[in-house]
């Protein structure tokens, strides 16, 4: 390609008529320009026809509404009063090829009766799995040492807030939570 442009400056040059370069036929020139513009225009349309669906496919997360769904954690009786226990549920939007990643754990604190707090397993700092310690009534994070009190409030370490909580309801004696997304700081109310 380089060679071509090096050797043939005359034919490819835009028609700047100078004494040394003979001008093309003006008629021929406009046709050539029209064809070029037409070609570019057609390709722009073709490009859009390919590119817009492609971008829409890749960036679908920017168009889709964020959705959650109710899932059952189990019978209320599974969770003793005054204790915090590990619960788990199947991601409501899981795929059949999700394998073990479809099962999500959470910490269920039954304060008394139907009073619950359901915490996400993810540390509010950078999402690592927090562990509950019944004896000291603390959640501890193995990554950067975040710690939370029994009620999810931040106790120590780098987390900028308390543990994320799930919205819950009791339905037919079952504890249900609104789940389906990885909690991050982008969700102000979690």
């Amino acid at each position, binding site marked *: 390609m380089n060679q071509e442009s090096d050797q043939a400056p005359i034919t490819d040059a835009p028609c700047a008529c100078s004494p040394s370069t003979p001008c093309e036929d003006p008629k021929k020139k406009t046709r050539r320009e029209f064809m070029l513009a037409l070609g570019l225009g057609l390709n722009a349309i073709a490009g859009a026809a390919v590119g817009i669906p492609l971008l829409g496919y890749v960036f679908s997360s920017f168009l889709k509404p964020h959705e959650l769904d109710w899932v059952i954690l189990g019978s209320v009786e599974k969770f003793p009063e005054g*204790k*915090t*226990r590990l619960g788990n549920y199947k991601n409501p939007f899981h795929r059949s090829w999700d394998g073990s990643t479809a099962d999500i754990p959470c910490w269920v604190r039954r304060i008394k009766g139907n009073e619950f707090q359901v915490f996400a397993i993810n540390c509010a700092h950078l999402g690592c799995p927090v562990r*509950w310690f*019944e*004896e000291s009534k603390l959640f501890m994070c193995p990554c950067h040492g975040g710690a939370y009190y029994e009620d999810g409030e931040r106790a120590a370490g780098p987390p900028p807030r308390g543990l994320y909580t799930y919205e819950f309801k009791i339905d037919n004696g079952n504890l249900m939570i609104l789940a389906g997304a990885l909690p991050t700081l982008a969700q102000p109310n979690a």
Partner: protein
Amino acid sequence: MKKALFFTPVLALTLASCNPPGKPTLADKWKSPADVSGFTNLYAQNCLGCHGDGKSIAGSITLKNPLYLSIVSEDKLRSITAGGVPGHNMPALAIENGGSLSNEQIETIVKGLIAWRDVSKLPTAPIPPYSAPLGDVAAGKAAFSQSCASCHGNDGSGGPKAGSVVDKNYLNLVSDQYLRTVTIAGRPELGCPDFANRDPATPMTPASVANITAWLSSHRLNEFNQAPTSSPANK
């Protein structure tokens, strides 16, 4: 040339048979904490910190105490390991009680403790049973001054060789059963002899063990320094 012909297969064989240090074996495979087995492992992870293992000593009674293991029943060991001692500093280890151990792992620990039983090291005197009702407080005071006062002081508030056993905070943290267990089994690793060896000539009787426990327990006070209406061991 002939040498090379001879050495090439030898070299190839050595290379093939040698075990590269970096080659992972099935033993390196990741194991789920639920799959950890073996009494030594489980004991080291879950019990060692508070109970020691006879070699290392710790705050609480060593579980390798032959006397303790001879009086405690297997069921009692199982229920304490799985369910803890509510209200006192023994955690529940079973998953269904909020701990991290499966029933098989609890069983491994219980069986391992039972295997530590060693009848050859037991005293010959009649051994008081693991549990019994509290005895007589007044008789307990007398028995205490006979068997325990030389270390813990006449009134139990500390003596030349050991600290107070009637301190209200101490008594708040231990159950009556713990008091009884230590009265029987002692803390030999800390220098406190068992019931038979406090005075080797006259071993303590089951009755005096119950009485001493009652007397110790009678010192319990609540946070307002009043005698509580019911023993904290029953809460």
